[in-house]
């Protein structure tokens, strides 16, 4: 699934230059060894680099291919991003597709098209308007995925209002932070939080605080505060007394 096209080992690194932007500057895109932006920098055009570092605010106006991109602050990529490692603390906005092996974000990740990765670990906000594909998906915070969230292992600990049109995978675990936060959020905040989806399908499914039309799966557990129109299960089902399930059906 993940196919990072560029093998940087084959590059003769001595042929390429480093770029370092300090302050407020603009450089052209191209092939570089290290790109480092400190302050407010802009790269115009497609960029290939072994490593990209952004501290402050960086903008790349083109497709970006790299083996590691690290952002502290704000990053904006106008095209697609293809990278082995994506590490972002702060805000990362991508107008195209993101293809990566590992994505690790703290803060916000907003992708206008598809997210494809092997492993995603996100804390904070995540948005994708064309869906998400991964092997492992781990999220703490809020999210909105307009199409399909397709991942082998899904582990979500959400707060706030979240939305995914469809969720599919092997192990699906959707929990609400409320259950684990003693003292602070109990009783006052978070009680109205809901995750909404139209369809959830998986081998093992656990959901809570979720409003969903149809849940299908082999082993299903419905936690509290769920509102579900229809559950179809193959093997087993457990429903919390605090959940509303209109119809359930064994296939």
């Amino acid at each position, binding site marked *: *699934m993940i196919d990072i*096209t560029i093998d940087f080992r084959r590059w003769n690194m001595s042929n390429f230059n480093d770029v370092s932007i300090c302050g407020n500057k603009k450089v052209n895109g191209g092939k570089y060894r290290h790109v480092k932006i400190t302050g407010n920098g802009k790269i115009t055009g497609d960029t290939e680099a072994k490593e990209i570092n952004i501290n402050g605010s960086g903008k790349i106006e083109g497709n970006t291919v790299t083996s590691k991109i690290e952002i502290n602050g704000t990053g904006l990529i106008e095209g697609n991003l293809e990278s082995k490692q994506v590490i972002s603390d702060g805000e990362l906005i991508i107008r195209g597709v993101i293809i990566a092996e590992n994505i690790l974000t703290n803060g916000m990740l907003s992708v206008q098209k598809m997210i494809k990765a092997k492993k995603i670990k996100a804390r904070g906000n995540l948005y994708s308007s064309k869906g998400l*594909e991964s092997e492992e998906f781990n999220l703490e915070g809020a999210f909105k995925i307009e199409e399909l969230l*397709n*991942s*082998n292992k899904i582990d979500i600990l959400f707060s706030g209002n979240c939305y995914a049109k469809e969720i*599919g*995978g*092997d*192990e699906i675990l959707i929990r609400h932070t409320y259950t684990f936060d003693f003292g602070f959020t109990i009783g006052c905040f978070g009680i109205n939080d809901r995750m909404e989806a*139209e*369809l959830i*399908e*998986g*081998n093992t499914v656990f959901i809570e605080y979720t409003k969903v*039309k*149809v849940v*299908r*799966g*082999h082993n299903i557990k419905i936690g509290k505060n769920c509102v579900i*129109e*229809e559950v*179809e299960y*193959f093997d087993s089902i457990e429903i919390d007394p605090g959940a509303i399930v209109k119809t359930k059906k064994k*296939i």
Partner: protein
Amino acid sequence: MNNNTLISKKELLQMTGISYGQLYRWKRENLIPEHWFIKKSSFTGQETFFVKDKILKRVKEILDLKDKYSLEELSKLISPEFTKRIFDSNELRRIPQLKDKIINIFKNILHKNYFTYFEIIFIYAFSKYKDYLNDAGEDLKDIIKTVEHWSKIIKGTSFRFVILGKKTERLYLLIHQNTELIYDNSTQELKVIDLEEMLKELSLLMNNIIND
């Protein structure tokens, strides 16, 4: 594309014994192309359907080959995505199903020794269905040049290659999988070649040769 009975996703799971997790994994790996998932509204919102014959055949293939190859290899073998590699004409000659004559024609007309996967699919298709082509020079030359052009602008293989005949004229079309074509009375459909099928057959052939 008439006798396309549809089955729903859960019927498919019941019939084949696979799980939701597997199905979604295969979708991620592109073993089952996106456009095979047909969304239809039902009384509980939407439900996903498949064309029965196609999906059952594909699932059986995946289950049969799954033990021999890893999923990633499998997706290269039967997925509609393109393999990025380019092949040498000498390499191609080792595959007996690709006719030398056709390779030579491609080589002479396109003036190159290397072919993309897309072009090789057509080399294979032309070798297999040689009789349907008009051998008379210009026609073949045109279509081969078109194939080169197509290979640049088209992504994926979810297409059918259709050869139409009207009186003595030949017409070559590339149409998307799910599109239906209706002709006038004097037009005959001479041959329909499914590129995805071709790709699959070809991948298996190539795999045998390259692994030897």
